[in-house]
Structure formats: structure tokens, C-alpha cells
């Protein structure tokens, strides 16, 4: 069983993000970079699939610049067997279409039975790359799942829908994307970190995977025009009152007079 994890390096969710002078990107100088949290779930699930299956291997695939190697190494330290980085400066600012097509092009050369990706990267929040990969490879995609099991060449998943779950099934190979609750990602142990440090991460150029069309990057389908920081949420208030009825009255008053929503 060859399981591929699509991995993205993103700014730490605790980092305080500042918008760069161009207004359309962020300042990266003091940003701490981490593995996209949804991709950590993907690595964990991939390891569990291989462990349950008794054989196979987990390959981590990322597209980006050299520094993404540290994210791949984190996945290797969790136990992934192999890491591949498609490395090109242009990938740093690539849109979702370009990223998806690049990953798909690489996957055409890498044997895969199951592809697991985070439902979205927490930096761009696009939810698109896994779907573009699936479409480009003509594979089924089962998004936002909280449980999976594999038998007889089929994968069965519980998918989160509004107010409940839905059980879905597809033939392998397939693409699945993760939702919180799928698992608790394991910690990297120190001996595994030592081993991961010594592992070689394969580097592929765009040429090597057959991407020669520069217009993917020079003329992207989607361009970021501008970025804004979210408005600060206001502090909440605790509604006072001696009895539940009094509290309800006071709440109504707040809603009418202060918030002016009713």
C-alpha cells in the first residue's frame, strides 16, 4: 500500500501576522513555520493505514521552496518513510491551480494507492488543492472525513455534513481530506528525529515532472489583490441578574440598546 501525504508548510497559527508593504502578501521575517495542522492529521492517518495494512509506505510530497524541507522532516520524524520536495522559487507565490497541477504532475510519476491531504491549508483557506489534484488525476475525492477503513480495494469514510455524518465509499486509488477528530497526531520521538535528520529528502525540479509551461506562474488564474487583517473582536460581557428571568430581561435590553439588533 503506497500512501501519499500532500503537505504544506504554513505560518504557525500563534504567529502574529503582519501585511507586507505590497499589501498583498505577509511579512515573513519573524514568522515561525510549521506543518499545516490538517496535514498533521493526514500524516497520522497515513501511518495508521500502513500499520493496519501490515505493509506499504508513507511518502510525503510537498511543493515549495527549500525551507519546506523542515516541514517534510517533521513528518519523517513522526514516522513517514520518504519525503519528496518539488522545489522552485515560483511555487512560493503560486495559486491553487498551479500548485494542484504541479502536485498532480509529480503524482503521475509516483505510485499511489491512497492520497491523503489536509482539508485546507490554514494560511490561504482555499480548500482547493486536493480537489484539483483529484480532478487532474481523474481520481475520486472524499473530503472532510473523520473516519476511514479500507477493505477489498475500497475505502469507506465517514464524511462530515451539516448536522451529521454521511458514509461514503470509493474505489482505490482515491484522494481523502482530513477533518479534526480523525485522529490525534503522534509526537515525534527523539530517536525518530535523529533518524529523520539523516534521511535524504528527494528534490524534484519542475522540468523533471514535466511542467514546462511558465504561464502557470506568470499568468495565474487567481491573483491576490490585497490582504486585510480581520477586525478585532470586541470583548464579551457577562449579563448580570439575580434570577434567570432578570438575566433574560437584561439580555434583551443589551440586545436592543447596546447591540441594537432587535
Amino acid at each position, binding site marked *: 500500500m503506497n500512501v501519499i501525504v500532500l503537505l504544506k508548510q504554513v505560518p504557525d497559527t500563534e*504567529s502574529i501576522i503582519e501585511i507586507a508593504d505590497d499589501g498583498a502578501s505577509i511579512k515573513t521575517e*519573524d514568522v*515561525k513555520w510549521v506543518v499545516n495542522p490538517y496535514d498533521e492529521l493526514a500524516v497520522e492517518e497515513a501511518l495508521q493505514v500502513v500499520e493496519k495494512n501490515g505493509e506499504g509506505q508513507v511518502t510525503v510530497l510537498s511543493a515549495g521552496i527549500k525551507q519546506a524541507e523542515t516541514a517534510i522532516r517533521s513528518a519523517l520524524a513522526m514516522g513517514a518513510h520518504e519525503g519528496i520536495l518539488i522545489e522552485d522559487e515560483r511555487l512560493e507565490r503560486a495559486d491553487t491551480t498551479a500548485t494542484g497541477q504541479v502536485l498532480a504532475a509529480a503524482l503521475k510519476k509516483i505510485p499511489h494507492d491512497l492520497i491523503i491531504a489536509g482539508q485546507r491549508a490554514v494560511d490561504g483557506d482555499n480548500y482547493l488543492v486536493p480537489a484539483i489534484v483529484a480532478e487532474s488525476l481523474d481520481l475520486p475525492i472524499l473530503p472532510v472525513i473523520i473516519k476511514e477503513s479500507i477493505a477489498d480495494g475500497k475505502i469507506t469514510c465517514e464524511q462530515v455534513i451539516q448536522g451529521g455524518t454521511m458514509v461514503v465509499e470509493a474505489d482505490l486509488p482515491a484522494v481523502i481530506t482530513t477533518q479534526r477528530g480523525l485522529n*490525534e497526531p503522534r509526537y515525534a*520521538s*527523539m530517536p525518530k528525529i*535523529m533518524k529523520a535528520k539523516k534521511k535524504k529528502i528527494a528534490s524534484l525540479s519542475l522540468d523533471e515532472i514535466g511542467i514546462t509551461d511558465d504561464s502557470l506562474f506568470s499568468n495565474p488564474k487567481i491573483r491576490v489583490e490585497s490582504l486585510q487583517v480581520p477586525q478585532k473582536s470586541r470583548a464579551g460581557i457577562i449579563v448580570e441578574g439575580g434570577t434567570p428571568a432578570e438575566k433574560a430581561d437584561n439580555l434583551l435590553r443589551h440586545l436592543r440598546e447596546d447591540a441594537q439588533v432587535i
Partner: protein
Amino acid sequence: MTTERDSIEFDALFVGGGVSSLAGAIRLMQMAKEKAMELEVGIIEKGSEIGSHSIMNPIALQELLPDYDSLNCPIEQTVRGDGFYYLTRKKAWRVPMVPRQMHNQGFLIISLARFARWLGEIAEEMGVNIFPGFSGQEVLYGEDGKTVTGVRTGDNGLDANGKAKSNFEAGIDILAKVTVFGEGARGNLSKSLIEKLGLSSQCLPQVYETGIKEVIQLPEENFFSHNPVNDIHTMGYPLGLNVPGGGFLYQMKDNRIAIGYLTGLCYEDPGIDPYDLFMSFKRHPFIFDIIKGGRVVEQGARTVSSGGHYTIPRLATDGAVLIGAAAGIHNTPALKGIHVGMKSGMLAAEAIAEALEKKDVSGASLERYRRLLDDSWVHPEIYEGRNFAPALAMKGMKKWIHLGAQYLSKGRGIIDPLPLDADYETLRVLNTAPTETTDNMDYDGSLMVDKLTGVYLSKTQHREDQPSHLIIKDPQLCIDTCYPTYGSPCTRFCPAKVYELETDEITGQRQLKLNPSNCLHCKTCDIKDPYQNINWVCPEGSGGPGYTTV
């Protein structure tokens, strides 16, 4: 519960990834190269770390990496001129004579977080194994019960009740021929090591100052744009002259400044809140004029061990040494610890390299580190300040007479050594009924931020669902004894609002509520709690503040 534990072996293990450890590890790799030895060197670091001062005397760095400039060392500024001010409530007086220990011209202003990251990269390139996110849980000893054999790391994946979750990962035993404790001031493993082996039985108690610090983004045109002074220290308001402490302000890169306030933890008034003092300092007209129009971009807090020469414990024991702030190596009159800390790490490395070569890592063999330190430039610097902390802790005229005598006699003063009390012993009993903590400061959320916004700006994070890393030995004592006697000073001295007093609406029962996930790892509570009822232990690895620039 018996747990299967992995173990891993190193020749030398540094506990704590601050600048003293990093300098030590780099020096050790240099020594290994000179001696053509193969050494496996590891550093564990529980999270990110901070030091309280960012003016550095470059002497140790010049010795360690003479070509630091071409290696892109992240230097913010060079000190152009010092300003030393005495503040009254409304006014500032420039002290005409800056004490000789505080001449900083030509020294480097650095962001300790950036500087440590830079040293870390150099160390890794030289082959040092750095493990961020691993906390030390206990010191491992050999069969004789006194030879240090390494460190056990903390378990990961425990829930709030201490039960293993599905991703539980037991801590591992890191065994090392020599373990180097460089955890910074009041490191929890150093504390247990010093206590167990009685390493400070011949010493005065260590004393501390709590520093709270911010990085503020100023407008393009600001006080430092055209000022020959870019390094300001103050004494006086708001702390007054009786308690050691004071304010500082340095220019950084890109119109940013570092500003901070130190409060000596030997204070007596249980009502003191170091965070409020820092806010009052920022509101002083002289300081406010410098920072107005600015925005706080980062905040942090840390204690500094400021006792000096007579508080330094025995530095070497069988299989282990202590370096940097964990050993109290600090130049108190100069308010500087970085260069002496780095040098202590480097000299420890030289002794370790030789001990490993001779295959003798006994305390007697590692004792050579202390001799190297005593023969280096570190010793006269620290020795001159040997009576400074006890004199600073005095009140009224006495303080100035002692300080003056020391200034003229190269530190000897009138009594040598002067006695010193531990910080937890100094609080005065309340003579009025305790009052609840009130927060009546005016915060604008941008230049003036409250404690919780400060916690956010420190980027501190802990996995919520884990056992508390602040152990209250006797919770009843907090309510029955400490509250009526001192009015629960933990609710004030903690800069991160970790401790709150709650009153049950129905029963009127008081209870101490802990918010461990706010913790900035400054260790003030472990030091100042008058009953020594709080024990600070490492939370799960990678928890804690995520400083990037302070």
C-alpha cells in the same frame, strides 16, 4: 505504572537552548575539531526562550566567532550613547555621571530571540543535534545516587488528569557522559540538582529580579531618529529607591524599541504588582514622550538571577556542570548576563572536551571549568559586583553608603560579604484586610495593553488538555493562611494572570484558580511565593511563549 522508555546517548547534553548553551555547544564542536575527536552533542530546549537584556558586551562573541559580522549576526544597533536618568513622579533628571559598569558605548543591541536562532543555525551546521520541544522532567543519577547520568524528558500526550491519551509518548532517557545545565534563571532541573547535591550550601541565597519587556513599533520620525543617546536606563519612579529595579529603553532596527522594567523580588510590600509598575513607568511623562504613537508588537517576562558572586553554586559535580544564568553567572552592577553566560558555556566546553579526552568526567576533573572561569575576564567583572545585590536590597541612606564604599573599593565595601535574604522571606505581613486585585489602569489596547493582551502578544501557547505545570503543594494554605496574611500576592506578582482568586457565589468560599496556559515561564511564582508552596515544573514540550524579537 511502569513505562517502557527509549534511551539515547550523547557525549555531552546541554539542557536549555539559550545563548550560554549554544555558545558552549559551538565551542565544544570547535574543541572536538582541534583535538580530532568525534563527539555527539545534543541540546534540548523546552520551547522558545528569552533573556531580559538585549545589550550585549561583544567580548565573548568576538572570542567564539571572530568573523561574526560576515556570518550575518543579527545586530539591531550599536550603542551610540548612554543615558542614565533619575525619575520622580513627573520629572526626569539626567544623572551626570554614569557608573563605570554601565558604560555601554560600542556594545551591541541585539534581539536575544533572533541572536539565539542565529547561534542555533551555526551550531546545527557544526553537527550539534538541537531538539526543540523537549522538556527536561528529571535529572538521572547513577547507582551511587550522585553521579549525573543524563536527563529524562517529559511525557507527551497526557490529559488534564494525567491519564495517557491515544497519542501518549513516554519521555525518554537521554544519557550523557556530561550533562550541562543551562536552563536560565531558576531552571527547574538545576534547582533540583543544586538542592539534592547541596551545591549551594556554602553560598548566599540566589536573588532575582522580574523583568517585563516589550517591543514597540514607533512612527518613522521618533525620539531616536536624531538622538546621540540610544540606550536609556532609569531609577526612581515608580518603584522608588528602596527596592532594586528600574527601567530601560533601547533602540532596535526598523523604528522599533525594546522597553522594559525590572522589579527586585526582595520587595516587602505584598501589594506590589510588577506589571503595574511597568505600566506606570510607561506612563511617566519622560518615557511616554518617547513611546507615544507606538504600538506594542511583542511582550515577554523573565526573571534574572542577580545575586552575583557569592550566590554562585559549585559549578561542577560528577558528570555535570552548571552554566550561565542557571548558575547565577551575572554581572549585576552592569545589568548584563549574556557575555558572561556565553563565556561560562565556552569555558565549560573546554573543560568538558579535556575531561572526555582523558575519559574522566568526575567532579574533580570537571572542576577545571571553575578554575578557567576564575582565571578569565569573567571573574574580576563578577567579583567586583560581589556585594552589590545585598547593598541594593537595603533601604534609605544605608544603601547609598554601602554602594558608594563599594564603588570606591572595587566592590569590597564596608562589610564583605554582606548578608542576603532569599526573596521568599522578605514580604511584610498585611496590616489591613486583604483587598481583591483591581485593575483600574487605562488601557488602549495598542500602546498600553493589559496582562491578558500581553499574554497574547507573547504568543504563548500550551496544549490546554494537559496536567497543570504549576504544582500547588497545599491548596488550603493559599486560602487559610496566605490570603489573610499577605492577601494572595501570586495574583499580583504573576505578569500573566495565571493566578486568580475566585469566590463562590453561593457559599462565599474562596478558591485559587489557575490558568497555566497563560504562563510565560518567568518563574516569579516559584521564587517569590512566601510559603514556597508553588513548584514550577516543565509543561509538555513546545509549550510556552513564542518570542520572535524581544
